[in-house]
């Protein structure tokens, strides 16, 4: 069964690549606008260093932005959820800011901080922050109050740590997943706008030079990075964050 799961998609992938290669080979598609797979592979070998360097930079932008973003979002979300007055005071402002498309912050960040990596990091941080913040905040508000009564009955002092945080973890985790998705969507375009940096810059610059094989290479690579990040997140969630939700119900007796 496991074999089919792996083999079938690989067959499909090779079939597509083969048809693509043939279409270009027989000039049904103009190779200027869609280079053949083999051309792309060759260009990868020629530009390995530049390409790998760009991958590293993009992953660095995504991960640093992500961890700073969620690092700010979770504590703030918890506080907003617990403290009614803070929620009332600040949540309208936060909600408005959260709806602004993140990339539109870039011009103002460039004016403030210059043409360097800081504007990209800031966009990644904002991209990660809001989904994590909003989900944490809603999670805390939706907590089953009966758990808090249990803790009070046992005279437990650190209710936040023992009840509120773990009880809202399913929501927080949902926020962390959205955060990685949105950070991933926002970071490469920010790099494109900034120019020669990361995979976004790699793609933009290659298009400028009309090297479409490198553009496609960059796009496919981003797809693979995104897919891997989401899979890694799923694994962490299942194995650690929400282990209890993923345990089979098999102890009935």
């Amino acid at each position, binding site marked *: 069964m496991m074999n089919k799961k792996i083999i079938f998609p690989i067959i499909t992938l090779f079939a597509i690549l083969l048809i693509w290669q043939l279409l270009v080979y027989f000039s049904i598609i103009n190779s200027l606008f869609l280079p053949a797979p083999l051309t792309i592979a060759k260009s990868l070998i020629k530009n390995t260093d530049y390409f790998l360097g760009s991958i590293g930079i993009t992953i660095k932008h995504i991960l640093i932005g992500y961890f700073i973003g969620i690092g700010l979002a979770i504590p703030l979300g918890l506080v907003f959820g617990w403290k009614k007055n803070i929620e009332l005071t600040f949540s309208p402002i936060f909600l408005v800011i959260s709806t602004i498309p993140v990339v539109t912050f870039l011009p103002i960040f460039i004016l403030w901080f210059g043409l360097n990596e800081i504007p990209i990091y800031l966009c990644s941080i904002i991209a990660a922050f809001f989904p994590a913040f909003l989900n944490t905040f809603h999670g805390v508000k939706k907590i089953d109050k*009966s758990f808090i009564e*249990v803790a009070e009955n*046992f005279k437990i002092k650190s209710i936040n740590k*023992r009840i509120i945080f*773990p009880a809202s973890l399913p929501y927080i985790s949902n926020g962390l997943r959205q955060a990685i998705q949105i950070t991933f969507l926002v970071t490469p375009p920010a790099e494109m706008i900034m120019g020669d940096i990361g995979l976004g810059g790699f793609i933009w610059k290659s298009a400028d030079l009309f090297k479409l094989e490198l553009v496609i290479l960059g796009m496919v690579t981003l797809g693979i990075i995104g897919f891997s990040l989401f899979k890694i997140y799923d694994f962490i969630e299942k194995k650690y964050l929400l282990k*209890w939700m993923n*345990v*089979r119900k098999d*102890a*009935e007796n």
Partner: protein
Amino acid sequence: MLKIKKLSKSFENLEVLRELSFNVNEKDFISIVGPSGCGKTVLLKIISGLENPTKGEVVINKGVNPIIIWQDFRLLPWRTVYENVLLPLEEKEIRDKIKKVSDLLKFIGLEEFKDYYIHQLSGGMQQRVALARALIIEPKLLLLDEPFSNIEWRKTQEFYEELKRIQEKKKLTVIQITHDIPNTLKYSDKIIVLSQRPARIKAVFSNIKNNEEMQKRILNLLEPDEEVI
């Protein structure tokens, strides 16, 4: 160990309890019966200190920390059986917590399930976990909120027997809210019958065990209300 004096409770305009007074002695097994929704759970919360009475008072002996076993158990789903039972001890500075929990799980018969999560257990087993979690801090007074409404009737008998065994051994005082009249007659030292809301004490019965005359009187008193339910 516990004296309830003219206790009343209202929520805004809704009067729930009206001038309840009764005493509870050590090692009593007391059952409170009455129509659904008459405010019995509120009474348990007031005794445990989770709610304040509107009028009247609850006088509890020093060092008695009443623990509620909730109708829906309220076990923490993100914790294993072991971790749930450990919860009340986590902030306490005592030695051998791990051994204490293990011993209790053995005593309650849950040892082999200690690493299971709550949703993996049957209702009856969840109830035993809830009981273990309450017993781990060695409370003197246990408050049970309709303890048997979420488990099969067959298991109810077993649980009562177990509760009695534990009560003897740990010198517990038990107050339970219940609709299970047959078992209530069999096990209770005292039965307090409440009226419709606002709940008042309709009658208090003692010396019930093996007293058929008394049991008949209780059944007669309960019947009209049971029909209302």
